[in-house]
């Protein structure tokens, strides 16, 4: 059964970086950050491409973000997406998941979709909300934290991971939305020719007008959102640091482990 697949991707700052807060406290300092595709979105993309390869159909890679986010769409094209769409909401911070999800849902509505996939969470803001929020807005059945998907008859079977490694197995009618868990598959590397080809593909842009909006400020929200302020977390700081050269640190740690009786004799 061929599927119209839409995979929602997010470009995020590499979370391994160090971050500081901008002077007005409303965002992080963004100069000098490098950006990458969100971790679990790579698994969502891979799942979408595999479902297409197995069942036929088409994969549209969709993102909401500034121009720089086109790089992750090209990555998606190189890995097997058939079309790339960027919604041009270009707030670099975009802290309000409700607004982003409403924009994303409006964009998904304009695309044929039997199955919408997202990553389980974004590693920058960690809301774990975008997927189910988009599904709720669109009235789609949804399953989150999915580790395995099978097309079964006219629908899907999906395994959802719970705390402690337990799984719930679901059957889901289509159209539907799934959020894909880390490790659900092994994402492929893009072959060089595909990367070269993807670099030349035109990326479709969705502007507010295409969604019936005069501007991105006109997105209807049932609330007003504001950033009160960002700060480094108050250091709980009870870690006693062992300092010195690696040799010193190793010696001190070995001594501590001995003193506390943790070393087998």
């Amino acid at each position, binding site marked *: 059964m061929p599927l119209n697949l839409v995979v929602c991707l997010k470009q995020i700052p590499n*979370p391994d970086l160090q971050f500081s*807060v901008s002077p007005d406290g409303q965002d992080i300092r963004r100069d000098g950050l490098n950006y990458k595709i969100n971790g679990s979105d790579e698994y969502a993309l891979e799942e979408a491409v595999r479902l297409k390869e197995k069942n036929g159909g088409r994969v549209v890679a969709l993102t909401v973000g500034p121009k720089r986010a086109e790089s992750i769409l090209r990555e998606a094209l190189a890995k097997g997406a058939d079309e790339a769409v960027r919604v041009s909401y270009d707030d670099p911070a975009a802290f309000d998941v409700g607004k982003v999800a409403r924009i994303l849902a409006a964009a998904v509505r304009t695309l044929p979709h039997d199955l919408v996939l997202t990553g389980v969470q974004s590693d920058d803001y960690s809301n774990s*909300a975008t997927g189910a929020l988009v599904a*709720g807005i669109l009235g789609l059945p949804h399953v989150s934290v999915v580790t395995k998907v099978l097309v079964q008859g006219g629908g899907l079977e999906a395994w959802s991971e*719970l705390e402690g490694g337990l799984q719930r197995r679901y059957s889901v009618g289509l159209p539907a939305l799934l959020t894909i868990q880390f490790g659900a598959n092994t994402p492929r590397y893009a072959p060089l020719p595909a990367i070269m080809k993807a670099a030349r593909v035109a990326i479709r842009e969705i502007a507010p007008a295409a969604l019936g909006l005069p501007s991105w400020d006109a997105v209807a929200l049932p609330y007003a959102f504001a950033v009160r302020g960002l700060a*480094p977390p108050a250091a709980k700081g009870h870690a006693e640091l062992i300092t010195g050269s690696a040799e010193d640190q190793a*010696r001190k740690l070995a001594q501590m482990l001995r003193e506390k009786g943790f070393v*087998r004799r």
Partner: protein
Amino acid sequence: MGKDILILAEHLEGKLAPSTFELVTKGRELAAQSGGALKAALLGLNSGGLAQILAGLGLEVLHADDPSLAEYTDGAYEQMLLSLLRDVAPRVLLVAHTSQGYDVAPGIAGRADLPLVTSAVDVRLEGDKLVATRRLLNEKIQGEFELASDKTFVVTLRPGSGKLAEPAPGGAVTSVPPSVDASKVRTKCLGLERPQVADIDLSSADIIVSAGRGIQKKENLALVEDLARLLGGVVGASRPLTDMEWLPKTRQVGQSGKTVRPKLYVACGISGAMQHVAGMKDSGLIIAINTDPSAPIFEIAHVGIVANVLQLLPAVIKALKS
């Protein structure tokens, strides 16, 4: 809009989730701020016993018991919650930020067009505003976010953020007629599955030496294994390593893996993402080794070493052997 606070109880295999007891504590604070009552929704099948336990914490439990609610599905829960939101019109619907919470809270917020904040480590009401404290960017930044609305705020609270509620008088169970039109539920739970793998039981180990992405290559696991052997412990891992199948899934410590409380936990090259920390933060002595001084693992570690594990571990092993 009413003033009550409604929490959504979570349960699995006949037990209330520990996070539900934290919701009661936080819900009580919010109810004091809104001037309303704290109520809980408990949806399930043959779940009267759980409703009684929950009511024993001193709150009114709105209990719906129906075959359509035997296991969580988005469709049945959304229908029940929509009906409860109409009846109670709570100021806040509070849900745990768990695997199920990721699904149900945004789902209902989308369906009913409600304001949503997820993964809050703290939350409070200030008049018509809800203020949530959240952690961003691998715990390296904390933010306060404000939502102003006259609609029900949907909030998920990160497990481990608050105290567990203790039994208190004054609770009651109110039966709520199930209002699920099964023909409109397009997600069906086919069953629970527990992966059966024969391996050591990490949760019973006294000493765990865990490896994270900082070990860089599978071959370097040998260093972690050597240290574990010298300490009479076992090897654990953070999620990325078990995802890459460097170690079996049974060795994964964290929210979706094992929760452990060993006497000694040595975190080697683990940054300390929330999902990992949730599974080991109550260990007796936590020693963390990481190159990044801003890594969140140092927030919960008792002893921290800012160093490259690949240089430090050989030196420690040598020192322990001498």
